[in-house]
């Protein structure tokens, strides 16, 4: 180890970098391996356009909730109530849309607001009354589930009006219409174009960032890693984009999910709010003594979680085309598992949005792949449980060794 403070050593060695970031690369590699494994074993069914579309629709709400859950876990808490919030929001949206005939344009924001209030109701006890979040949200889980039964009177409500259903089952129309969709392989050029543009932008932005970092002598990941990572991500994205474009194009949900992922990645990595949440989770007392209003910050992470759970609740209701009292049962566990598979630490302060998203997709691909293979729900649960344990063991093992 160098003790010379005058020399600036901003470029880490490759081995050093790999050691520090093995979790992230490992995760990405694991996702790709799992995808290829199921692609082979299902004889190509996994990546069929219609299945990819299904995969996105089935997992979007888990991913969306994982964004909020990651912040909660990084802050050092947990939220067990999200499955019940999903059910309750589904229920009240059904009452408002189906029974009262309110327009979707009003119901959607209203429901998100109600979800935020439900988060706030729990955040208050956690942040200001210092009750452990496990207990508060366990109570919330029961209370909100009970409220769902009360609102629905124990019976499913549906079907939803068309303008609400498109939230979940709609696709972005092909603005280009280059060929006749009936005869051509590619049925939605717009989707393909969007994906290619995004990949292009990601490469451009990544390169620009590296150049700026080099100019200002800040840390860069070794170029080989950058290149390989970019190549894998680009290849997968373009392949998936192509497959989607041969079916019905980009699902609306995918767009919403993509925008949210981008937003939360930005918030966690680039803003003071994100930084403060990580600091609070890493050492709450030190954060507080550094002038961070830890109570308010905790409160808002729960408000945020409630709002995202509400959005997920509406997507699920729209997809099932009915609100049932049993909607979202056990979702909180999938969401939490996604975060932990994605590298979040149960003791707080550690975890990344990208990790949680990849974690959610690992779970999603496994669910989907095993269903195609005809593996029963019993073994699916068993295998998912072992994967969670293995992922966390990998973390702990790395930490102890480092």
């Amino acid at each position, binding site marked *: *180890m*160098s*003790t010379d*403070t*005058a020399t*600036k*050593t*901003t470029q*880490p060695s490759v081995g050093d970098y790999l050691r520090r970031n093995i979790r992230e690369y490992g995760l990405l590699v694991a996702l790709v391996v799992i995808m290829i494994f199921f692609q082979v074993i299902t004889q190509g069914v996994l990546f069929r356009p219609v299945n990819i579309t299904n995969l996105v629709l089935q997992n979007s709400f888990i991913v969306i909730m994982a964004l909020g859950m990651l912040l909660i876990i990084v802050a050092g808490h947990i939220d067990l109530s999200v499955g019940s919030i999903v059910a309750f929001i589904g229920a009240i949206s059904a009452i408002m849309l189906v029974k009262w005939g309110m327009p979707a344009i009003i119901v959607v924001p209203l429901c998100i607001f109600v979800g935020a209030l439900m988060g706030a109701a729990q955040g208050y006890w956690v942040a200001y009354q210092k009750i452990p979040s496990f207990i508060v949200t366990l109570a919330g889980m029961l209370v909100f589930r009970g409220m769902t039964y009360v609102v629905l009177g124990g019976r499913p409500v549906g079907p939803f009006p068309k303008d609400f259903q498109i939230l979940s089952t709609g696709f972005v129309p092909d603005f280009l219409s280059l060929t006749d969709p009936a005869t051509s392989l590619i049925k939605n050029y717009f989707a393909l174009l969007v994906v290619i543009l995004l990949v292009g932008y990601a490469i451009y932005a990544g390169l620009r960032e590296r150049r*700026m*970092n080099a100019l*200002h*002598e*800040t*840390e860069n990941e070794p170029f080989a890693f950058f290149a390989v990572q970019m190549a894998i991500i680009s290849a997968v994205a373009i392949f998936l984009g192509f497959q989607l474009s041969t079916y019905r194009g980009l699902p609306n949900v995918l767009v919403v999910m993509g925008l949210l992922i981008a937003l939360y990645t930005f918030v966690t990595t*680039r*803003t*003071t*709010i994100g*930084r*403060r949440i*990580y*600091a609070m989770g*890493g*050492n709450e*007392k*030190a*954060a*507080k*003594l*550094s*002038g*961070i*209003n830890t109570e308010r910050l905790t409160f808002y992470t729960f408000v945020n979680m409630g709002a995202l759970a509400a959005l997920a609740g509406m997507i699920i209701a729209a997809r099932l085309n009915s609100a049932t009292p049993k909607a979202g049962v056990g979702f909180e566990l999938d969401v939490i598992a996604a975060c932990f598979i994605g590298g979040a630490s149960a003791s707080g*302060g*550690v975890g990344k949005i990208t990790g949680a998203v990849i974690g959610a997709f690992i779970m999603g691909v496994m669910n989907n792949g095993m269903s195609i293979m005809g593996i029963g729900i019993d073994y699916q649960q068993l295998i998912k449980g072992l994967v969670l344990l293995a992922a966390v063991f990998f973390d702990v093992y790395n930490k102890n060794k480092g």
Partner: protein
Amino acid sequence: MSKTLLEMRGITKTFPGVKALDNVNLKVREGEIHALVGENGAGKSTLMKVLSGVYPAGSYEGDIHFDGEVRRFSTISDSEHLGIIIIHQELALVPLLSIAENIFLGNEVATNGVIDWKLAFRRTQELLDKVGLREPPGTLITDIGVGKQQLVEIAKALSKKVRLLILDEPTASLNEKDSDALLKLLMEFRSQGMTSIIISHKLNEIKKVADQITILRDGGTVETLDCHHEDISEDRIIKGMVGREMEDRYPPREPKIGETLLEVKNWNVFHQHHRDRQFLHDVSFAVRAGEVVGIAGLMGAGRTETAMSLFGRSWGHKITGDVFMRGKPVDVSTIPKAIEAGLAYVTEDRKQLGLVLIDNIMHNTTLANLGGVSKATVIDNRQEAKVASGYRQKLRIRSHSIYQEAVNLSGGNQQKVVLSKWLFTNPEVLILDEPTRGIDVGAKFEIYTIINQLAAEGKGILMISSEMPELLGTCDRIYVMNEGRIVAELSKAEASQESIMRAIMRSGEKH
């Protein structure tokens, strides 16, 4: 009385970057009270951890002879098995269990896992009689005071057939009456033939009970004094503890003292947990620009509590009093407001309260002033790196980059990161609470140099320290606190270890 029970020979213990013990020798005779003294960081606790097996055999150099044989302890239970029992400063009792349950914790009076409560209570009663504690064995620990808890710890040690009882600062948190009782008990045990080692800062107590005194300084043995051959004065002990040339340890400084920056008047604070107990009484003090002001006092005098209650009411309740910055009253009722007013507080416990250990140097540096590296809440990465690199160079933080995690830094460098964080908030007055605790002599010198630089830049420094030589070496003025009050204000010329101790003792007599 002359047989040697314990001999530690040539003990050397190294931590990454610090040599905590360097060839230390300790010889304890059977049936005596042996005092171990030295400044904070001299190595007393480390030595006792080596003895008890907290640091297992092999992690240090040197030999331990106990009862005539070389011993190699790899766990605490190895040493306890031979009757070496340590009572730590922070008592290791379970608050919500009874006295009897605590005494036999891990050593239950049980057959096949079923506890014989009758027998346990009877034995507890016998032990409590021995230590003179009149409480029923079923009383919960949380319901008795610290003094009595200390006695429970001793009773627990007696239950384990103790041969060598080690007490780490046993009277630090006791009042005079409880302290006296405890010391009498130790002397009684001695008359029954028990051997004990007592670690203490209270030299008057040591003088009262010790047969021999071993003095440690900077990780080495200075000398062992025999109290029966000569009359050992407190000054004699202090000379051994301090012993070195003061000029070498503290960088020189020409104070340029300006206007009054911080002034606190009639600061009254009630205890955080015991809410009807007033902890700080009418504390008033001032810090001027370019001045280094010290607060001296024993543990529990209320120094840290003064700082923390002042800094955004982080401690205590029912806080009253006035705070002025440059003569204008300011609101310091929350931490952001205190920072806004120009205060910074470097905590005594940098790992628990100062740093986010799992985060890197850069993130720790900017934590208290994220606004300074961001626009509309978006952090400018490059600006942040520039700031962190700047402080890394200015304070000479030894690390391979600003992206190194704080947990991997040495104590001195961690402290510099905490200092960076607070300097970046651009404070007018820095409160430094034990800024050199647990860091080695070289790093201490660097911290003093930084303090001098800050004073030269016109900042006011309020320094809390338990190391009197440090206060004497760096401060322009020293307040002495005792039992929640400021009991003396000494100029640099008036201040000495004797005058500080005298002020503390005299105030103790008054109340």
